[in-house]
């Protein structure tokens, strides 16, 4: 299946969350990690293809660098994402193609670029950002969007079949 993953899904996939001290926070994170991990493992196996704009790679790099206080770790993760995912760089021609959908989504710059790319390439967009999810629901005909939190492990396994 063709997917577009939001930066938060990558972050959950790379961080197990087992060391989070607060029990409730840990439980919530570990649940999201398990789902993102299954999803990303299937990407590595070639069961899914991920198509994302380069701004998502930049966000992943920024968050991992912050979480680990190491720019090298942020770059390592960004490099791996670039290796296994189709990254679209926002050139003049690409932006020109995406602008009509960006205009319809009316979200933040990054949300709009991600959603426009998902619409253009007909991918399933998976995010854990409820605001983005709810906004895109209004554009159902343009983007097939799913909220990671609301997806069960069975839902995730099902999209791999």
């Amino acid at each position: 299946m063709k997917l577009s993953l939001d930066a938060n899904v990558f972050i959950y996939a790379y961080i197990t969350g087992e060391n989070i001290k607060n029990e409730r926070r840990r439980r919530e994170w570990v649940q999201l990690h398990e789902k993102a991990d299954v999803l990303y493992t299937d990407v590595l196996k070639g069961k899914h293809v991920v198509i994302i704009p380069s701004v998502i790679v930049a966000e992943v790099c920024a968050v991992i660098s912050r979480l680990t206080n190491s720019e090298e770790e942020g770059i390592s993760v960004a490099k791996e994402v670039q290796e296994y995912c189709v990254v679209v760089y926002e050139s003049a021609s690409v932006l020109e193609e995406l602008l009509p959908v960006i205009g319809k989504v009316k979200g933040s710059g990054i949300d709009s670029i991600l959603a426009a790319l998902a619409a253009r390439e007909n991918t399933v967009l998976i995010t854990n950002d409820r605001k983005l999810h709810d906004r895109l629901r209004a554009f159902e005909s343009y983007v097939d969007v799913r909220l990671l939190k609301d997806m069960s492990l069975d839902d995730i396994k099902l999209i791999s079949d």
Partner: protein
Amino acid sequence: MEADIVSRVDKLEREVRRLKYMIEAKTLHEHVIEELRRVKPLDELEIKERLKKHELLKNRISSSVVVEDPQAVLDEVIGDRDEAFS
């Protein structure tokens, strides 16, 4: 008058450069099609290598987290896109 012509020529030259770049640049879909071939694993061996490499990186990153509440950082960096752009 002369300055006006120079300015118009300059503007046209910029537009020609932009159009030339757009013609030469791949369309989004062409780029995606080309990249789809690259990201597809060749065989089981490559899949095993990918999984092993990813597992090592994931474990290293997970054990390097220095903040108590990663979700708070995630919300701060990514969750406020709307505020940042509205």
